[in-house]
């Protein structure tokens, strides 16, 4: 069987729920061995799109193909090689974790049952496997969901906010595992509302806003288009610092509601600005990165209001601009 060049192909997918448009002509194409992020604020349509990939929601318009086959063509084997979960994974609370996996392995057929021990160990649930799921925390349920996905020997892994409820160590572990999976040729699609998480792990993204695709493409391409990073600056004289920024090219500063300044600038421009502040007798008491360039682009694309002070979208400096 020839390896299809495109693993996931969604074209013009549209879904209404009554008067609300959840997805509006969404296109999404993902190739093999890629970690693809599905970004968007809550309510943007991420879960709807992932549900449509799983066949839980049937789109009103558009086509969806997994491994080159549509749901109608493939029949019951449509989800062969596809695994993952949508929203928090749910299990039978009156059964133990192990028993739940056994039920799911039974549905899959084949030799899925042999993987249960390995799956429980790898997700750190070996001890909890014999406890009823009703006693599991959110993080444990997420990990059981991953274990259930592992049973299906996936070639395509679809995860809805997988880092939800996990501690930082778990998130790091997850990141490494997903990157390794991608290296082995498995395609991963994960959704998140947090660009910072996605930046570190994904190769490409689709950004959804109010059911429409705001951006789709590779992250490195996205970076060249991104506005400047956003920094939080605390100085000995905020007013003077703000005044000074107006004469610096490529630097925009505004006061923050909680005190200090919000500065939009590229790294090199920021360095110049800080040196100028020092020369003009303004001491820098604190400087930290608040929003990466990609995060800033994300907020732009989705029109999300950012916490604290911010400049209107039209006034944000772009790296390509020259003053």
């Amino acid at each position, binding site marked *: 069987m020839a390896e299809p060049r495109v693993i996931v192909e969604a074209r013009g997918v*549209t879904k*209404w729920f009554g008067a609300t*448009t959840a997805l*509006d*002509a969404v296109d999404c194409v993902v190739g093999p061995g890629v970690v693809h992020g599905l970004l968007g604020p809550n309510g943007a349509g991420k879960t709807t799109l992932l549900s449509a990939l799983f066949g839980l929601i049937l789109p*009103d*318009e558009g086509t969806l193909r997994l491994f080159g086959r549509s749901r109608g063509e493939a029949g019951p084997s449509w989800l062969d090689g596809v695994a993952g979960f949508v929203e928090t994974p749910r299990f039978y609370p009156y059964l133990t974790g192990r028993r739940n996996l056994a039920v799911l392995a039974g549905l899959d057929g084949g030799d899925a049952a042999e993987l249960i021990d390995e799956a429980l160990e790898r997700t750190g649930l070996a001890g909890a496997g014999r406890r009823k799921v009703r006693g599991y925390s959110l993080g444990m349920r997420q990990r059981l969901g991953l274990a259930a996905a592992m049973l299906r020997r996936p070639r395509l892994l679809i995860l809805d906010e997988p880092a939800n409820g996990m501690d930082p160590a778990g998130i790091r572990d997850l990141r490494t595992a997903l990157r390794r999976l991608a290296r082995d040729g498995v395609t991963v699609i994960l959704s998140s509302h947090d660009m910072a998480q996605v930046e570190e792990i994904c190769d490409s993204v689709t950004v959804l806003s109010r059911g429409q695709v705001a951006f789709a493409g590779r992250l490195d391409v996205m970076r060249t288009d991104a506005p400047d990073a956003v920094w939080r600056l605390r100085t000995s004289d905020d007013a003077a610092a703000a005044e000074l920024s107006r004469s610096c090219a490529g630097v925009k500063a505004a006061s923050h509601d909680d005190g200090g300044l919000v500065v939009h600038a590229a790294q090199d421009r920021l360095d110049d600005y800080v040196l100028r502040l020092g020369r003009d007798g303004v001491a820098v008491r604190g400087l930290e990165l608040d929003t990466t360039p990609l995060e800033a682009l994300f907020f732009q694309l989705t029109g999300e209001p950012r916490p604290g002070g911010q400049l209107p979208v039209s006034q944000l400096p772009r790296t390509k601009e020259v003053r």
Partner: protein
Amino acid sequence: MIARIRGMIARLRRRGRHRTRAAALAAGMITLLALSVSGCGSTGLTAPSLQTSLSRTFANLYVLQQAEQGNPKPSAASLDSHASCQKGGTLDIPQDGSGVWLCQITYLVAGPGYPVIAKYNVDVQTDGCYAADGDGPASVNGSPTITGPHYAQLINPLSLIDGCFDTT
């Protein structure tokens, strides 16, 4: 704007699908009703059907009663039993449907060969089953028990008659 038009068209198409589905279910229900028609309007609980069933059942049970009492058994046919029933005891109301019917069963007793009339209050249910409560004469159906050989007390089969007839 264009999205809204596309939305309206798709919603109309979906409503069309729903209408087809609803129409199919309605057609199914109508078929169900039509198939179940087995005598439009009438309940199937008429005097002739009750009379036929009651007289036949009475004859069989009379034979059983005689056998239990140790008397010679007549044949059911020789009894030539006929029932005559009236709903509510009068012909002034429609003789159709469930409720209390008063029945008189005329039969020939073997030997002297003169007719005896046994009376019953019959409670007819809507499914065509009835319970006939004996109302005289006392020796036939008035008493709930009869005496068998060796003075054993047995249930009098003619005291309470359960039977059913076909209403379809």
